[in-house]
């Protein structure tokens, strides 16, 4: 049907998240039809990202500079560190604009199934940052799952002796959420965390 190069492109595209062989074929065809408008800019962007983007040596965020833009920003509060599972969570918090401190990206969660232990998550790096001083609070913004909260508790166990305030994200009714549709765990957590109106 086509040359080996196109098949290879389709194969590579089909390995991307959210794309299967059919959508990879459509994507490849779209790019081939719009070579100048889509394909070349995409090639250049991919080449630049592959060349320049690195993990920040301080927080683990992905950026073209090291330290990353977040760590280098003097307007951010250096006394606050928000611990997140991966860069996608950091981006989500940045989109929300809810946090003006600095981050620490773990790169995963403790998981018995996947054999991920504390050493694999760079918890030593976090502890060194906490020991360096000047920190007033570490916010553990980790998923409300067994693995996520187990990781949060292990981090809390390590940082508690340093006398830093540790906090976690609240669990409860989401914006636009109706009680009837919430699971029992969320409802119970929301009830326990009720506050004066």
């Amino acid at each position, binding site marked *: 049907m086509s040359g080996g190069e196109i098949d290879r492109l389709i194969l590579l595209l089909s390995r991307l998240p959210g794309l299967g062989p059919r959508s990879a074929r459509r994507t490849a065809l779209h790019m081939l039809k719009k070579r100048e408008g889509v394909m070349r800019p995409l090639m250049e962007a991919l080449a630049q990202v592959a060349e320049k983007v690195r993990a920040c040596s301080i927080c683990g965020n992905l950026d073209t500079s090291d330290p990353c833009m977040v760590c280098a920003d003097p307007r951010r509060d250096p006394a606050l560190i928000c611990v997140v599972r991966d860069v996608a969570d950091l981006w989500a918090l940045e989109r929300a604009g809810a946090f003006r401190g600095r981050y620490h990206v773990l790169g995963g969660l*403790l998981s*018995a199934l996947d054999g991920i232990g504390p050493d694999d998550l760079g918890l030593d790096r976090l502890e060194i940052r906490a020991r360096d001083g000047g920190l007033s609070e570490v916010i553990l913004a980790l998923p409300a799952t067994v693995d996520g909260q187990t990781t949060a508790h292990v981090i809390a166990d390590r940082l508690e002796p340093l006398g830093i305030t540790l906090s976690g994200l609240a669990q409860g009714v989401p914006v636009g959420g109706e009680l009837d549709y919430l699971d029992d765990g969320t409802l119970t957590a929301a009830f*326990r965390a009720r506050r004066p109106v």
Partner: protein
Amino acid sequence: MIEWTDRAIVLSARPHGEDAVVASLLTADHGRHGGVVRGGQGRKLRATLEPGTLVQAHWKARLEDHLGALSLETLAGVAGLVLSDRDRLAALASSCALVDVVLPERAPHPEVFDSLLALLDSLAHGESQGEDDLAWAGTLARWELDLLAAVGFGLDLSRCAITGKTEGLSHVSPRTGRAVCREAAEPWLSRLLPLPTFLLQPEGCPRDGGEVVQALALSGHFLETSPLVPPGKTLPAARRRLVDRVARWATISRVP
């Protein structure tokens, strides 16, 4: 098409492809059973697939030995109730991981299902306050011994292996799993495993963190040395974390 419907407890779920997971369940009548849950990585099913969730599971496959597909409906969630409690969360993770490692697949163990359900219920109700509330820790330690018994490696704590006495049992032989009374244990104290007294009473509660540590060391020894753990593997990391956590209370309580 072979199919069944059963109550089950979610033990673990690992991603399979982009949206599915392979779940491991402990069912009431079909033992530990796996299956593919389509859409298991999606928002709707994520809470259902947390360890400890009681579900109504429907499994079907074309042949008996196929992995098969599972559809799940939540009956009761436990994880959400213990997420903020470090000790109980560690106990939940440990017990589910332990069953996942120790029980053979597809061998019915209704008594393990019932005992795990009771354990999860005791974890879900109440707040742990370290050494101030050790009832759940006693239930957990006893449950581990019940798990050993269910898979054929139960300890004999009914009488002393040497004197036959039923009173004053204080240690357990690490080789035979039989209890030994205090006077008979005297010459071999360094080689025997301490037997916390609460394990001898059906509803006994540990007196302190030290007794919980001893009980977990006892069950841990027999879990590790039995052929239940596959060669080259150790007990789950979740159990090690639980033991570390309990050992920490015990240490703190001994500091004057």
